[in-house]
């Protein structure tokens, strides 16, 4: 009679000890990181970044409808995720032919095997020879982006690229919410501020708010990126170009020229920036 009670007591003690240990671990981790960590951070540690990267790549594979190189294939044309590149949130490092990473069939088994997996390059949302795309199929990348952001909440590219695709699907409110979630994890991040500005300019037509956000992004870039050994010049390029365009549209030519002057020093196409500046100066002279 005593034995079952003894076992139940033992199990209850073990459960209490386990709960106290796990609770303590979570509590100390939360204290160490200022209360910003979630379950995945506490229990997965640095592994979560690897997993986040895996899901990030998975999103790109979905963007290609499954036509994606494995570790055994030539990945040179897939160094930068295409959905991020298309969103304008990363400079392309891709080389080679993205349409033919498989190359010619190596043997008869390889040739026959290609019947059973996707062997044509596509991007979701594009029409192709063998597929009829339905509007808004880009949405299929979103679960993996959401998961990647949950596992690694400190990667600004995840927020910015996801917001771009949400914006393209007319999900402006969700895009803004997601970016604000990103700002909670990465306060003042220039890339997230830049994308937030895009939302206010393109979707809300709120030029004033967009200007404020882009100016804040520029300030943050100068504070955080400029001192780095390899700053994100691609982002600076975009911020300055968008600011210059906005100032031009709102008739503040001198401000636009100021931004273009800086843009010219970092742009890979200084001649076209010079032409842009000349056009602006001409239009100002004519107005006078």
């Amino acid at each position, binding site marked *: 009679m005593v034995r079952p009670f003894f076992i139940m007591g033992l199990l209850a003690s073990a459960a209490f000890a386990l709960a106290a240990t796990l609770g303590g671990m979570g509590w100390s981790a939360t204290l160490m990181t200022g209360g910003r960590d979630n379950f995945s951070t506490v229990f997965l540690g640095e592994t979560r970044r690897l997993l986040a990267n895996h899901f990030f790549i998975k999103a790109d594979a979905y963007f290609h*409808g499954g036509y994606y190189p494995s570790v055994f294939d030539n990945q040179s044309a897939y160094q930068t995720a295409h959905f991020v590149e298309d969103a304008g949130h990363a400079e392309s490092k891709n080389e080679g032919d993205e349409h033919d990473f498989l190359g010619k069939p190596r043997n008869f088994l390889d040739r026959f095997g290609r019947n059973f997996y*996707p062997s044509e390059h596509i991007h979701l949302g594009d029409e192709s020879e063998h597929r009829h795309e339905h509007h808004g199929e880009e949405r299929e990348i979103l679960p993996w982006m959401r998961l990647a952001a949950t596992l690694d909440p400190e990667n600004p590219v995840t927020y910015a690229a996801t917001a771009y695709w949400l914006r393209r699907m007319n999900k402006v409110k969700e895009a803004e919410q997601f970016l604000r979630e990103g700002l909670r994890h990465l306060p003042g991040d220039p890339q997230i501020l830049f994308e937030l500005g895009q939302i206010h300019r393109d979707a809300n037509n709120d030029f004033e708010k967009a200007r404020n956000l882009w100016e804040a992004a520029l300030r943050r870039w100068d504070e955080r990126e400029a001192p780095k050994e390899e700053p994100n010049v691609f982002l600076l390029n975009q911020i300055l170009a968008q600011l210059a365009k906005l100032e031009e549209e709102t008739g503040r030519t001198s401000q636009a020229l100021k931004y273009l002057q800086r843009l010219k020093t970092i742009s890979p196409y200084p001649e076209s920036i010079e032409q842009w500046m000349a056009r602006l100066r001409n239009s100002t002279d004519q107005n006078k």
Partner: protein
Amino acid sequence: MRVIWAMARVVILELIRRKDFYVLFTLAAVLTLLAGSVNIFNDRQIARYVVEINYLLVMISSLVIAVTTTARQIPNEFEQRTLLSLLAKPVSKGQVLAGKYLGAWVACGLCLVVFYVFMMLLTYTKQHGLGVPLLFQAAWLHWVMLGVVIGLALAGSLVFAAPSSNATICLVVVVGWLGVGRYLDKLAFGTAEPLQSVLLALYYLLPHLEFFDLRELLIHHWPPVKWGAVAIATLYGWFYMALLYALSCWLFQRKRMH
């Protein structure tokens, strides 16, 4: 044929009576429904990740059912001492093996029907109806692949002492082969002899299970595979099934009955 079918029926009934399939199906269904119920940016039409998760669970469950069901057939007959009395009747060893093989294959086919019907219903509720021809091709080729896996487990059950070790080895080999089988020739060219020749020999001799895995086409809404290719893959699978059956018969002939 009547004798073979009678023995096959016993295997099918055994799977129906056991809880393996029900547990795996319930688990797969619950996990899929949980994954599908997640709200992702208020978009109810996102469906492909659910199909992927479901397909993965179906693949795992079907492999586990196929391997564990087959791996215990012959060892159980030995353990319960029913094999000798079975062979004392006018039943040959080849018929015993054929009955076990057919029974396990048909039982797995029945399980697959349930799994794939669930997958189809699931995608229709997500407004992402899978094309029936592609779904049929995926289920059919999946079944043929299970036939090859069952052949492997049957041959393994005549080599390895315990069903557990046989099942573990079979699952490791099948999963590994599904993952790297397609690239083994590429890997071979990066290695030195004699490993290169060994890898190339394995590439050409072992069955290419990836021919039976339409996961990527199914998930990403590609059009169905050419029916000619499905027919050739089926014949390819049947060839390996016949080969593994012959190997099992040869092993069974050499096996001591006591």
